């Protein structure tokens, strides 16, 4: 940037403004933070996919089959692979921050450790996922 003159005619360099573009790429901690926040976009996109699905379902069989065909397209498969990765990362980050966002639990006079809360969260998520898949398979048998 060129030096500018102020009212008194003294040439000064413009004040330094730290560039913020791409700030999060400068530190692995910030990269992890951004990856975590981007999983919200995955949840948003999936909500939108389901919204379209419900709309098409309400419009009759032909519309619904069109949505099912769209879900079979390679672009949709790639999208859902990315969404799946996003959801798994969301499980990780959701339970990672859980010990910081929830009220402390005291058991036997001692605060339940962060690791224990995280392990419990992951265990419940895995159990629910397996149950949901088992229910889906069972509903077709």
């Amino acid at each position, binding site marked *: 940037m060129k030096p500018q003159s102020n009212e008194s005619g003294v040439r000064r360099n413009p004040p330094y403004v730290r560039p913020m573009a791409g700030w999060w790429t400068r530190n692995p901690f910030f990269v992890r933070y951004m990856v975590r926040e981007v999983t919200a976009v995955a949840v948003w996109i999936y*909500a939108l996919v389901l*919204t379209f699905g419900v709309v098409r379902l309400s419009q009759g*069989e032909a519309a619904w089959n069109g949505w099912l065909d769209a879900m079979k397209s390679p672009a949709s498969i790639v999208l859902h692979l990315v969404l*799946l990765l996003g959801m798994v990362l969301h499980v990780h980050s959701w339970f990672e921050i859980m010990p910081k966002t929830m009220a402390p639990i005291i058991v036997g006079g001692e605060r339940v450790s962060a690791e224990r809360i995280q392990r419990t*969260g992951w265990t419940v998520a895995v159990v629910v*996922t397996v149950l949901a898949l088992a229910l*889906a398979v069972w509903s077709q048998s």
Partner: protein
Amino acid sequence: MKKRSNAPFFWLMFGAGGMLSALLGTALVFITGLATPLGMVLKPDFMAYGRMMAFAHNFIGKGFVFVVIALFAWHAAHRIFHSLHDVGIHNGTVAKLLCYGSALVMTVVAAYSLLRIGF
């Protein structure tokens, strides 16, 4: 009287949606986006019209679809809104309307469609 903050509502939706998506999101994306379209693990007719209409007619199925869409949308909208500043977008009124507005639109559209399907 002091105007009450609307923050607790958004926070509640964020928390409920975050928990539901953490517990069920992975399974749902896999079932609807990969297993059914590819016909792996599940049969390709898992989400056939008749089955899905039966699911959407059922009181529990209808409620489940609505809660998943609404909570996922509100959770995501809340987080995206609060991340805008980090990518250099001013999180003012316009951003707020767009973020929470998208969640509201998804909620209303899902509710309307599910009611249209009937009981």
